[in-house]
């Protein structure tokens, strides 16, 4: 069964450093998403991406965040200068269509900012 994969599973970084979280969505999916989940809290939407551009983003997704689909398979989330409050689980998801369509989630990357 196809699945979304994410690397690394755990990333530890120093405050102020740049991190890149990587995702490989399901191959025939067209819509891609990043969500985050701070420990013990609900899953929060960050950004959606379609046709090589951001289609929607939340207020969390400020200028420190960027997304990219550098090739036909990878989808990345970059945090330019990490802050302590960026520590969270980051989930990538993909769907065949956009709205009103099942989103398949990856296992997540745990980001720890020291």
């Amino acid at each position: 069964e196809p699945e979304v994969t994410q690397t690394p599973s755990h990333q530890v970084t120093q405050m102020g450093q740049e991190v890149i979280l990587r995702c490989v969505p399901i191959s025939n999916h067209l819509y891609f998403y990043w969500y985050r989940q701070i420990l013990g809290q609900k899953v929060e939407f960050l950004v959606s991406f379609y046709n090589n551009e951001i289609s929607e983003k939340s207020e969390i997704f400020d200028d420190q965040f960027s997304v990219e689909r550098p090739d036909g398979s990878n989808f990345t989330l970059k945090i330019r200068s990490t802050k302590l409050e960026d520590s969270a689980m980051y989930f990538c998801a993909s769907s065949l269509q956009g709205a009103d369509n099942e989103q398949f989630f990856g296992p997540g990357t745990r980001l720890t900012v020291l």
Partner: protein
Amino acid sequence: GESVGLHLPTLSVQEGDNSIINCAYSNSASDYFIWYKQESGKGPQFIIDIRSNMDKRQGQRVTVLLNKTVKHLSLQIAATQPGDSAVYFCAEDANAGGTSYGKLTFGQGTILTVHP
């Protein structure tokens, strides 16, 4: 505004019992709802979905009920098993006039514990 919340943060049941997990939503424009299961250390796993033109949908051992009048969603799990122990989230997609590209708003989550 948009918000999705849960009535019960924890639910403890015996194996074989039926479980009911509830969710309230406030955005009347929401037209698509999903239940996700999240096990410790894993990403959300799709359980079942329902569109706003339906009030009930059944899957294998699970049923989702949607009451648009009171903006309430519930997940029923029949014959609950220890493997069902997880956090359950409801999520909504407010595709109002086609302005959503799949942004899901998640509820707070309910911890389901099934005792053997």
